[in-house]
C-alpha cells in the first residue's frame, strides 16, 4: 500500500503544479496516470505544439511546459504510478481514501485530487467485430515488455510515430515485422519514416500500405489477420501478435462511478471555496471539473490547484493554523533537503 498526503489522479500540468503548491505546505503527493509518462494531453496530444497563454511565457511547447513543471516540483519528490488507471475509490473508517488501480496497486491518502483532464486515455481500438475476444491473446494496444515479441511474428497497424517507432524497434526483436497502414503517407517524424524505408529496403520490415486489417482469426489466440487492400482484394497474414497503434481517446471512465456529481461529462465542484466535490476530501481541479464560469485553461487549473491545497492542508492538519507564505520571502525547502532562497542583501558604506 502506497501512503501519501495527497493522491493526485492525473499527471498533467495541473496535477504537477499541485505537487509544487502542496510541497510548499509540506504535504507530499503521489500521482497516478493511465499514460506511461507524465504530461497528460501536453505529452499525448500535442507535445510539439506551442502554448501562448501561460503567464510569463510568450510561447512554450507543450512538452517543454511538462519538463518545466517536473523540474519545478522535483524537490517535493512526488511518487508516480504510471500506466495504471484509477479504478475504485473507497472511504475508510479513519476518513482516509483508498484508491485501487486496474493493475491492483493500492494507494491511501487523506485527500484525493482528481486532475484528470479529459479523463483517462484509452487506446483507440480497431473497428473489428469481436475484437475484445483477442485482447491479451495476441492483440495488444500498447507495448509494455518488448521481450514478449522475441522471435515472434508481429503485425503493427498505424501511421503515426508510435507505429513507426515500434516497427523499427521490434525489427531487431521479432522474427517478422509487418507494418500496415491505410495510406502510403505516414504522419510520423521524417527520420522515423526514412528509417522504416531503409529497413523495408533491406527486407527487415514488411510494409503494406493503402490497406486495412478487417478481421482477426484464431481460436482463443490470434492465428492470422485478414488484410483488405485498396482494390478490395483480401489476404490472410499469419501472426503471433497484432498491435494496432491508433492513438488514445480520453474517456471519463471509472471515475464516473465513484458517486461524484457529474454534469456534462465533468465533475461538479464548489468554486466559491475550495474546488471540493460532493465527497468531502475529494477535490477536482483543471479540465475535469465544472462550475459556473468554468474555463478549460491550464492557467485556470493552476489557480484551482493552489486554492485546493490550502483546504487540503486543513483536512490533513486540522489543528494547525497557518498563513499564506510568499516563496520570495521564505524560499522553497525541498523534501530532499534542498533549499532555494533569495540571496541576502549586503549593505556597504560609500566612503
Amino acid at each position, binding site marked *: 500500500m502506497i501512503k501519501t498526503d495527497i493522491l493526485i489522479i492525473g499527471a498533467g500540468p495541473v496535477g504537477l503544479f499541485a505537487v509544487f503548491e502542496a510541497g510548499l505546505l509540506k504535504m507530499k503527493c503521489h500521482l497516478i496516470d493511465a499514460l506511461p509518462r507524465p504530461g497528460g494531453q501536453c505529452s499525448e*496530444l*500535442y507535445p510539439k*505544439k506551442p502554448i501562448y497563454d501561460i503567464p510569463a511565457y510568450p510561447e512554450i511547447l507543450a512538452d517543454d511546459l511538462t519538463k518545466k513543471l517536473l523540474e519545478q516540483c522535483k524537490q517535493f519528490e512526488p511518487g508516480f504510478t504510471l500506466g495504471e488507471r484509477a479504478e475504485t475509490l473507497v472511504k475508510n473508517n479513519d476518513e482516509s481514501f483508498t484508491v485501487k488501480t486496474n493493475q491492483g496497486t493500492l494507494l491511501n491518502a487523506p485527500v484525493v485530487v482528481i486532475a484528470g483532464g*479529459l*479523463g483517462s486515455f484509452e487506446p*483507440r481500438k480497431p*473497428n473489428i467485430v469481436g475484437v475484445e475476444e483477442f485482447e491479451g491473446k495476441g492483440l495488444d494496444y500498447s507495448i509494455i515488455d518488448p521481450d514478449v515479441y522475441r522471435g515472434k511474428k508481429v503485425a503493427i497497424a*498505424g*501511421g*503515426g510515430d508510435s507505429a513507426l517507432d515500434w516497427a523499427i524497434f521490434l525489427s531487431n526483436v521479432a522474427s517478422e515485422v509487418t507494418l500496415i*497502414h*491505410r*495510406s502510403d*503517407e505516414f*504522419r510520423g517524424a521524417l527520420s522515423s519514416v526514412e528509417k522504416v524505408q531503409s529497413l523495408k529496403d533491406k527486407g527487415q520490415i514488411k510494409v503494406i500500405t493503402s490497406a486495412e486489417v478487417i478481421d482477426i482469426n484464431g481460436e482463443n489466440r490470434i492465428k492470422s489477420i485478414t488484410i483488405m487492400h485498396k482494390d478490395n482484394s483480401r489476404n490472410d497474414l499469419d501472426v503471433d501478435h497484432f498491435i494496432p497503434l*491508433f*492513438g488514445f*481517446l*480520453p474517456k*471519463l471512465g471509472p471515475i464516473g462511478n465513484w458517486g461524484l456529481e457529474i454534469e*456534462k*461529462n*465533468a465533475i461538479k465542484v464548489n468554486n466559491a471555496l475550495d474546488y471540493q466535490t460532493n465527497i468531502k476530501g475529494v477535490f477536482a481541479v483543471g479540465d475535469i471539473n465544472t462550475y459556473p464560469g468554468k474555463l478549460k485553461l491550464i492557467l485556470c487549473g493552476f489557480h484551482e490547484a493552489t486554492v485546493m491545497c490550502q483546504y487540503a492542508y486543513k483536512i490533513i492538519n486540522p489543528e494547525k493554523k497557518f498563513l499564506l507564505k510568499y516563496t520570495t520571502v521564505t524560499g522553497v525547502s525541498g523534501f530532499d533537503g534542498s533549499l532555494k532562497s533569495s540571496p541576502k542583501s549586503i549593505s556597504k558604506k560609500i566612503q
Partner: protein
Amino acid sequence: MGSDIEIHITDRNGLRHSVDAPIDMSMNLMELIRIYELAEEGSVGICGGMAMCASCQCYVESDHQLPEVSQDEKMMLLEAFNVQDDSRLACQIYVSTELDGLKIRLAPAE
C-alpha cells in the same frame, strides 16, 4: 444581425438542427456544434480544434465549396474510423458567407 448565416447540422441521434452561425467571430463548425450543444459535452472537439483527434468528424451533405483539406486534417482522417469520401473535420472549417445553407451530419462517436 446581418452577420449570420444558417447551417444545418444533423446530430448523432439523427435530429436535424438549423442554427445561426456568426461570420465575424472566426468560429469553426466544431465550436458551432458545441455552442448549440448538439453533441454531448466532451464528445466533440476533444483536442481543442488542432485536427489531432477525429471527434468532430462530419459528413458534408451539400455541394458547397469548402476550404481545402490541410495536410494535418488529411492525415487525421486517414487514422479515423467511419471515414467516407465526404468526411471533414468540423474544426477545420471556419464559418464564412460562402457556407450559408451548408448541410453537415456528425459522424458517430468513436
